């Protein structure tokens, strides 16, 4: 697989990367932080923080229209980042659209493409393991257009069924299939190439939500073949406020714009306007310029490590966590048991202790885990729990972080007298 690394830097030993993240030096009562919530947002390396700082200190100007040198420099930095970000996932620069986050990217498709292509009686297919950001935009679209929202179920071991997909596609009314690449709760890596191929054969358009995939594994858009692929910068070591939508050129060209304003027009008359070229047709108003530049620095950083190495690290840490969790009495892990078919996220319950209480007791030992429904309430309902506790990893995590989690879980059992 081509992960399109443009930075030629040699792979850095993962043991050394921890020092690149200043926040991990944070201590409370002499105890360093164990940050295990990267599926919510990742921490940022020095190079990303420096990119934002130096952009504002040395290169800040509005992009695309200034004739002076500074404006040209800002434009080059921003558009140069777009080029590298596109190449990072095997995409095309002109069809790589910057949004505010993955949620906005999915809303862009639901409004602009959906409004023009989904009508009464048509069907939209999503799954029970989607994040709310890949559920609510489709609920709204279906309500507006009189279309039907259909769900694929999730098996006991956290998998989708391709047979059920075929069955649903058999109605002949499915206009779009929108599925997470990696589940933010179960960690399941979905067979997106196969899902896209089957949907395409049935005449449906496809969107893959790659928010949990791009940060932690090699992604090749050419191989996946989806019409749309959305992800967000802040989970991939980049800043908040920037997401990415990759689209197929012919589909994007045929779509009406999403948000209207400056920068997205070719010319504006009194009654009508004509649209700018891709990708700017979908980027109304002043862009998140510093954020784009910093996301470029984030993918340079990931490229230097190598996404195959990142994936191997996530897989190894997940396997280690699953193994160590067996020592804790009363723990039940959700999702696939095989680390080969799951990303770096482990959701669990500990019998007799609510996830919120677990997270609170972990926090006392300066171990940050998430407790709650993880913006996936339909999935929680399927699993029959109100909430789970979730630990998730990135390049900076190590065995010691996991050991501290295990020890905090044991402490929680003592506190609750179990």
């Amino acid at each position: 697989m081509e992960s399109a690394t443009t930075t030629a830097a040699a792979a850095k030993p993962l043991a050394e990367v921890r020092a690149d993240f200043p926040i991990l030096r944070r201590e409370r009562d002499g105890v360093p932080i164990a940050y295990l919530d990267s599926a919510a947002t990742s921490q940022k390396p020095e190079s990303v923080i420096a990119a934002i700082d130096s952009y504002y200190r040395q290169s800040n100007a509005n992009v695309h229209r200034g004739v002076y040198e500074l404006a040209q420099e800002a434009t080059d930095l921003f558009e140069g980042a777009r080029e590298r970000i596109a190449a990072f996932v095997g995409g095309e620069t002109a069809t790589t659209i910057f949004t505010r986050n993955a949620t906005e990217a999915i809303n862009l498709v639901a409004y602009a493409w959906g409004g023009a292509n989904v009508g009464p009686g048509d069907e939209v297919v999503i799954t029970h393991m989607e994040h709310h950001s890949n559920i609510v935009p489709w609920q709204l679209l279906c309500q507006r257009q009189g279309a039907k929202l259909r769900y694929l179920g999730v098996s006991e071991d956290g998998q989708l069924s391709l047979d059920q997909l075929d069955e649903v596609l058999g109605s002949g009314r499915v206009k779009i299939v929108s599925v997470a690449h990696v589940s933010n709760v179960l960690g399941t890596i979905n067979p997106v190439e196969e899902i896209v191929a089957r949907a395409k054969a049935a005449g449906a358009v496809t969107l893959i939500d790659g928010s949990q995939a791009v940060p932690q594994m090699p992604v090749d858009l050419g191989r996946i073949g989806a019409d749309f692929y959305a992800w967000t910068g802040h989970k991939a070591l980049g800043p908040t406020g920037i997401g990415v939508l990759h689209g197929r050129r012919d589909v994007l060209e045929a779509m009406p714009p999403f948000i209207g304003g400056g920068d997205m027009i070719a010319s504006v008359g009194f009654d009508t306007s004509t649209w700018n070229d891709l990708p700017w047709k979908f980027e109304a108003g002043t862009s998140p310029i510093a954020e784009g530049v910093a996301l470029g620095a984030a993918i340079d950083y990931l490229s230097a490590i190598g996404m195959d190495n990142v994936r191997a690290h996530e897989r190894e840490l997940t396997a280690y966590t699953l193994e160590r969790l067996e020592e804790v009495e009363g723990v039940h892990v959700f999702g696939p048991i095989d680390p080969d078919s799951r990303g770096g996220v482990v959701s669990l319950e500990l019998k007799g202790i609510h996830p919120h209480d677990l997270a609170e007791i972990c926090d006392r030992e300066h171990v940050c885990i998430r407790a709650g429904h993880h913006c996936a309430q339909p999935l929680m309902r399927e699993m029959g729990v109100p909430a789970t506790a979730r630990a998730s990893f990135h390049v900076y995590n190590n065995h010691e972080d996991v050991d501290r989690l295990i020890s905090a879980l044991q402490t929680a059992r003592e506190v609750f007298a179990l």
Partner: protein
Amino acid sequence: MDALYRDYILDHYKNPRNFGELEPHSLEAHDVNPLCGDELGVHLVVDGEGTITDLRFHGQGCAISQASASIASEELIGMKADEVAALGADWLIDLLGIPISPTRRKCALLSLKVMRGAISGDASWPE
């Protein structure tokens, strides 16, 4: 001894008082904590004098929210309904007797929110 998960808190969590449903009941309400998905319902019986003569709560949640509902339920039986509608957050926080951090405040107050909602229809968070 843990400052938050004190023995009596864990006891009310593991063996909640007045837990379940009540048929027939005169008032009821159901609510969720949108942050964590915890849910709590309550059934109340109020007599002709406006006194709460019985109540049951049901639902699921963390130790703080469940213990809070259980502890509050013991106080509320025998109180006048309009007194309960006027209770503020401090009443319940003081009753719990444990340090409640800002992140756990809604856990602690969900039960009072639901009980006030059942009586007065006011579904706002107690202040």
